[in-house]
């Protein structure tokens, strides 16, 4: 049989290409398309109604969406900064430990070993206003005599979620920064000490520039994590009370599955992914700059 025959490399790659297309590219294109339709799960025929950018216009003029979006950004900023600070502190302490460092490192990883769903349940229990550990402790210590409505007041609920988030993921920062500290050459630090630096100055001018790239790697990973925060919030408050802890992804899930408005939900999702991409690009830039600065060879 004569005629066109694909080259062997193409032929050999084809199975992989087909599989990827089937499980990644097609769903992606389909969901992108559906964000331009009024698709509702309960009315399958609506998938074929094309309404242009109306979903996007809707959501950009929708106050609830913007509030959820802003809340997500605030959570992202506050959580990342606090995790960064606490992680840095932990890493510096563990690095100082002359013995038992391995066991400390392992213990530090414990929170990451729990499913976020379980973390959510645990903190939901701890912050429960009647039987929770937190209120019990506060009352036992005589700091307050009333039940603080941790998961009911909007701001307090936000703090409760933040606490759970930080507890479960600070170790990402701690581990990566510790890796940086351990990889760092010892001599520049000693040179700085001889050059007249106080411990703080040594950290500020020598240690910190060295571990900055590691911190940015952690930032990148965690910014994606927090930007798609769903499970902990779902369990602890389910976006409530009355939408006061609603984040982008709890809102998307509610719109898609409870309200069955798949088209609109997809539009929200695509818009939110922009947020993640922006953060990733920003941190990658910072990472590249920091790496050039210390002339890293990796």
């Amino acid at each position, binding site marked *: 049989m004569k005629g066109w025959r694909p080259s062997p490399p193409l032929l050999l790659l084809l199975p992989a290409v087909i599989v990827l297309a089937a499980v990644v590219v097609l769903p992606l294109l389909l969901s992108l398309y559906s964000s331009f339709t009024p698709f509702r799960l309960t009315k399958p025929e609506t998938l074929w109604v094309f309404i242009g950018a109306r979903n996007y216009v809707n959501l950009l003029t929708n106050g609830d969406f913007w509030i959820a979006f802003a809340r997500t950004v605030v959570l992202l900023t506050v959580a990342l900064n606090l995790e960064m600070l606490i992680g840095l502190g932990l890493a510096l302490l563990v690095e100082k430990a002359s013995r038992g460092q391995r066991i400390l490192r392992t213990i530090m990883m414990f929170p990451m070993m729990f499913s976020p769903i379980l973390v959510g349940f645990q903190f939901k229990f701890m912050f429960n206003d009647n039987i929770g550990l937190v209120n019990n402790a506060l009352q036992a210590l005589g700091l307050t005599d009333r039940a603080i409505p941790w998961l009911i007041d909007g701001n307090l609920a936000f703090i409760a979620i933040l606490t759970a988030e930080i507890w479960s993921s600070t170790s990402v920062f701690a581990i990566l920064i510790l890796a940086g500290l351990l990889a760092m*050459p010892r*001599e*520049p630090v*000693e*040179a*700085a*000490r*001889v*050059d*007249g*630096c*106080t411990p703080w*100055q040594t950290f500020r*001018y*020598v240690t910190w*520039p*060295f571990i900055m790239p590691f911190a940015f790697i952690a930032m990148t990973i965690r910014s994606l994590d927090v930007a798609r925060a769903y499970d902990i919030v779902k369990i602890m408050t389910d976006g409530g009370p009355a939408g006061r802890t609603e984040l982008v992804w709890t809102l998307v899930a509610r719109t898609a599955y409870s309200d069955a408005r798949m088209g609109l939900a997809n539009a929200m999702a695509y818009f939110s992914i922009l947020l993640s991409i922006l953060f990733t690009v920003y941190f990658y830039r910072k990472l590249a700059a920091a790496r050039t*600065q*210390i*002339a890293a060879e990796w």
Partner: protein
Amino acid sequence: MATVSLKKLTKSYGPVAVVQGIDLEVADREFIALVGPSGCGKSTTLRMIAGLEDISDGLIEIGGRKVNDLPPRSRNISMVFQSYALYPHMTVRENLGFSLKIAGAEKEEMDRRVAEASSILGLDQLLDRRPSQLSGGQRQRVAMGRAIVRDPDVFLFDEPLSNLDAKLRTQMRTEIKKLHAKVQSTVIYVTHDQVEAMTLADRIVIMRDGFIEQVGTPDEVFRRPQTRFVAGFIGSPPMNLHEAAVDDGQLLFQSGERLPLPSQFKANVATGDKVVFGLRPDDIYPTGHGISSGEDADVHQMELPVTVTEPLGNETLVFAEFNGSDWVSRMLNPKPLKAGDRVKMSLDLSQAHLFSAETGKTLRG
């Protein structure tokens, strides 16, 4: 400018003593080299002087002031590290000026001193580069510049040339010597390379296993080694050292061969003493191809079989067999020799060394 004095300085890690109570007085503006094989405690000693290691026991004084518990920044020292230890995220200029910036110096003062150091070391063209853009030799110069800028009481060098290739090392050695002549400050220089120690230092401190074996000028440690270890450590190629027994005014070697007992030791040994006989390659040479030590020369002639020759151009190292092993000899104005040739050798016994086989100490009176 300052003196440095170490008194019964000790460092131990748990039960392991690395530096075992050493005493040393370094004069103002003196260039002292600490030399010894790896693990002898020389770097640890230097790091204790710098304040980078705690002292287990003893006393360190810089300029007459006890500094045992002072942090490095309060000792007014500067240190050059083996791996340069430059700050990779700073330019050469920032590296040089860093200590002044930390000390809160005025901008003009800082610029002036950085310019001064960079002109001494020829770094003017490199001031805006980062360490990663410099060669090894240039980095080492920046590291030295960083030390000079501080105008410290004492310079500490920790094997500064070990990471450089042989040619550059020789070149930098000369530069360090010039630098010391220029800045005129006290220098403590750690190296495992005895040639560096010999060429640079006013006095050499030879250390082994946490103890000081000998302190002396390069000439003293070369000509009058106090111990067998020093004799073997200083000098290249190393001194020929062989065990022998004193027997009726002669040295009896294990193989049964004999040499006359060098006259300068006659009074200090008796028949039956176990000794180590040492003779530098310069003092054993094919007859007619060496330099006589002058009127005192006590030359013993013997014929030995050549095993290997190593021609170096201006001289040839001739390995000849005696007492069952190879003795290195230095042949000036070399003529071709080959393995198996029997050569008449001159041994200048007036230059020989004898050490006690038991204590390793010299038997010179």
